[in-house]
């Protein structure tokens, strides 16, 4: 059975583009809406397997989409939502991650250009995983760089941490960095020891632990 998707985007062209793209990759688009209230209705009514949501939506053109997504997740905990935006903010990423239940994505709209990676991110979120934009992670790491345990990581470990924080599995990381999976496994183990985090085999839990750690260091 194909995954059921709700799409919220106010620009007509982009909305149609997303609908086509996701249909072509075997998703079932159950609703494509263009405003905050409609989105909230669709999310709570349809209970989709995943939702692709733009932050800025009518009627107020502020963070309508984000608010609707957060409200829907309060009503249905763990509802998978991938948030798209023209700009990424650590502040919003924090709010999305705050409930700690995962199944969250936060990407720049540009990432849609790379169809393969975008669809992969949607699938990951639908499966309860995480997809954080590299830019969010870069900002997060840049502002935590001075803190003790993080400064002790080797450059390679930092690379692995970055990709892991974006929400990628060991397999995906090994592909990206041209390493063997076992080497990536070793790096992750070392990172978890250095950061004093409990190791976990579950990819999703691992990502959430890392993100929670980075956010905790900040505040």
């Amino acid at each position, binding site marked *: 059975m194909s995954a059921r998707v709700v799409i919220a985007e106010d620009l007509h062209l982009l909305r149609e583009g997303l609908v086509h793209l996701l249909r072509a990759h075997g998703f079932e688009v159950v609703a494509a809406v263009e405003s905050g209230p409609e989105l909230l209705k669709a999310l709570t009514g349809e209970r989709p397997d995943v939702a692709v949501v733009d*932050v*800025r939506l009518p009627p107020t*053109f*502020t*963070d309508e989409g984000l608010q609707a997504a957060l409200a829907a997740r309060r009503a249905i905990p763990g509802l998978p939502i991938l948030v798209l935006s*023209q*700009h990424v*903010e*650590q*502040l919003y990423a*924090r709010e999305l991650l705050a409930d700690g239940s995962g199944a969250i994505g936060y990407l*720049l*709209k*540009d990432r849609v*250009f*790379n169809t393969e990676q975008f669809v992969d991110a949607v699938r990951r979120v639908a499966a309860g995983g995480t997809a954080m934009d590299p830019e969010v992670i870069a*900002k997060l790491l*840049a*502002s935590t*760089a*001075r803190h003790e345990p993080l400064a002790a990581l080797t450059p390679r470990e930092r690379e692995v941490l970055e990709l892991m924080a974006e929400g990628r599995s060991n397999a995906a990381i090994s592909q990206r960095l041209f390493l063997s999976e076992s080497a990536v496994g070793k790096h992750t183990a070392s990172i978890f020891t250095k950061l004093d985090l409990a190791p976990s085999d579950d990819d999703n839990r691992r990502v959430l632990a890392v993100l929670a750690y980075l956010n905790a260091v*900040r505040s």
Partner: protein
Amino acid sequence: MRRYAAATGRSLALGLLALTDMVLAAAVMLMIIFSFTLGLIFLFPPGARMLRRRTALARRLNGRLLGREIGPSYLPPPPPVRRQPDGWYRHDRQLYKTPRVPEWNNRWKWMFGDPATWRDLLWVTLNPLLGAALLLPAITIGYAVATARQGHPVALLLGLMAAAAVAVTPWLLRFYSWWNELLLGPTAKSLLASRIHSLNQAHLETADSQAAELRRIERDLHDGAQARLVAIGMTLGAVEALVETDPAAARALLGKAREASSTALTELRDLVRGIHPPVLSERGLGDAVRALALDSALEVKVTVDLETRPEPPVESAAYFSISELLTNAVRHGGGDRVWIDISSHQKSLRITVTDDGSGGADPARGSGLRGIERRLAAFDGVLAISSPPGGPTIVTVDLPHALAWEDGSDKRAQMPKWKWAIVGLGYGLGWLPLFPQGIVAAIMKIIEHENKSWFYILYLPEPLHWPLIIFNIALGIAMYGAAVLIPIQHSRERWMAEATPRRLWLHR
């Protein structure tokens, strides 16, 4: 006891100083008369300058001795004469080789046309009279002492009068200070004039910085996104030509085009952030500053205490000021913690940015601070820096009219009943001590008229005559003065309250 002694001392000093103004007033009057009747026009500016120096001293003393600061009341000085492109200096329709004559003309006009000059002159002319009044307590004491030495029995009564005079001295000084403020303080007109002057300045700076901003945006778009879109278009054209013959090359070009579009988007994103950060429009000042804090390399603690959301222009100015201050703290501060505090007090918005760095920030040097001041000027905002060597650096930004707030300034419009009572009393009874019991009695005394008639003073013992006559005249003048001046003073406040716009920039 000490308070009264000090007050008497002050009134003696101020009174003696005021008596010397007779000379100054006469000199300046002569200079002005000569400058107009004999055409010795060059005498006017030095005369006016002398007046200004004397009144500047009076303003200073008023603050120092009488505890009431008086600001200067002059119109803003004329701007310096500009050299024309052809090297000449212009004044009206005449050209000059040096700026001296036009400068002199401007200064002359400025001094002559400023009502404050004539108010200064009036003050200096009347000041000896008030000075004489200020000397009264000291004179009464002296008179009482002299009478006591002669062993005259009314000395006791005179002593009581002296005590009474000393007791009212603080009130006398208060009246004097109020009088000084009335003539030397800024008038509504001069306040408005200097306000307009500073608004003009702020307006120019705002327009200037806006134009610069637009130029920067234009340049960024032209060299960035626009150029990249052209490149993408060209690449796509090449792809179109290649797609049949060499699909592999076409695919490579398409990859490049996609990369270029990503770069263009990144650049546009940065540009947008510089114009108006999206978080600011989405969430308001508090969250925008929090987002800023999260992105900073320092540990930043943000406290926001705002009841209402400020208007967007204010938010934007506040945001960019904070952003600049945070950048400064990162770049020059050398500390690792920053505290940002945003709070409102009635209608003013106050921001403090504190860092635990090494301090020693020089406001004169940083162009960033200048930029902040320019941004804030449009909203009457001010910037204060405290940065002792060794830190901490505390920067305070105050935007006094930033928030909507209803103040109770309408209450001042109505004159309270007791003020009306004083005015009525002054007009109704002021004549009584002044004329029959004061001036007329003095004349009777001078011509040594035998008939005492109904002048009560003349029935009293001899040594009391003059003190009481002077007291009566002073009382009469004071009553009339109060009756005339209280409404003026009051309506001036009212007028100022009405003439000062509460929110200056928004007329939606």
